[in-house]
């Protein structure tokens, strides 16, 4: 299984992501530099991960400048060819800015950065990213962002919901989707969603930060297991 972890200037979770993929999940994982141009930049990789961080300082708009980086041409090509693309936190924001996922991100409702553990309900357990989870399973995962307030206009939103593209929703420990369980004001408590085809996933929470017992939780492991098992079958 071969993973590419894209490194933008200002990415700061690329090492965490590679650590989990290589040292915890035991997979092959390389860094790919943002300036690598051409559609072949990602040839030979099964899954491309856009890690968290503050690419280009998140100046202008979160993810905006990274979304026009040379490597994004290859990311788009990889996705179009049905390859797997995972965007975590800042990576999710980049995917939105690049138009690989619908909608946009606004400042947190609180206008404050939030670093805490939240609960997520698995809405779609059939994706290559979530197949090892149970539908409706509640996960405990850290978030750390100031801009995680997902937004989509009413029509886009209804398409997303109708198409079952919502993969994770913020919820309470019991699984109830309530305002209290929503840390940033995201519309419909959306924490993560996929494209129609199901090969591109973006989410604000950080599964790579809860994949080892010493870190206080292992609910993120399911995502790496899902990716590996789905890639093995593919």
């Amino acid at each position, binding site marked *: 299984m071969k993973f590419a972890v894209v490194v933008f200037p200002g990415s700061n979770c690329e090492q965490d992501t590679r650590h989990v993929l290589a040292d915890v999940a035991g997979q092959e994982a390389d860094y790919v530099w943002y300036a690598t141009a051409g559609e072949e930049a990602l040839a030979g990789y099964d899954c491309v991960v856009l890690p968290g961080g503050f690419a280009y300082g998140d*100046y202008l708009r979160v993810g905006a400048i990274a979304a026009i980086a040379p490597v994004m041409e290859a990311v788009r090509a990889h996705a179009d060819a049905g390859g797997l693309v995972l965007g975590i936190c800042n990576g999710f924001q980049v995917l939105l800015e690049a138009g690989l996922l619908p909608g946009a991100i606004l400042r947190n409702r609180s206008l404050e950065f939030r670093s805490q553990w939240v609960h997520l309900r698995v809405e779609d357990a059939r994706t290559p990213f979530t197949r090892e989870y149970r539908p409706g399973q509640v996960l405990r995962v850290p978030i750390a962002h100031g801009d995680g307030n997902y937004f989509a206009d009413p029509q886009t939103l209804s398409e997303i919901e109708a198409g079952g593209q919502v993969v994770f929703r913020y919820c309470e420990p019991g699984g109830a989707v309530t305002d209290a369980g929503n840390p940033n004001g995201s519309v419909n408590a959306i924490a993560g969603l996929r494209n129609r085809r199901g090969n591109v996933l973006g989410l604000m929470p950080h599964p790579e930060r809860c994949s080892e017992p010493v870190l206080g939780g292992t609910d993120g492991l399911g995502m790496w297991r899902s990716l590996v098992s789905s890639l093995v079958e593919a």
Partner: protein
Amino acid sequence: MLARIHVTLKPGVNDPQGLAIAGGLRQLGFAGVEGVRAGRFLEVRLDAADERAAARAVEAMCQRLLANPVIERYAYEITDGDPEAVEAAIAETVEEEA
């Protein structure tokens, strides 16, 4: 009334945002970009007796909350903007230019 307020960094103050944006634009091939300064644009809709009253209020708002006098400065104009008109105006320009 509608106050259109521009808050910008004082000249000489470091502008990381502007630098990064300029870098992004050049990366996109806009070689002609010489520099970018990033500021904030605030539209405050307020109910005031007349323009002078509105101006007095907005001036106070800028000094007390909207701008950080240590690194920023501000300028504003007051239109008796029923906002719709303004919205429309902006919208138009966008159409035209698009």
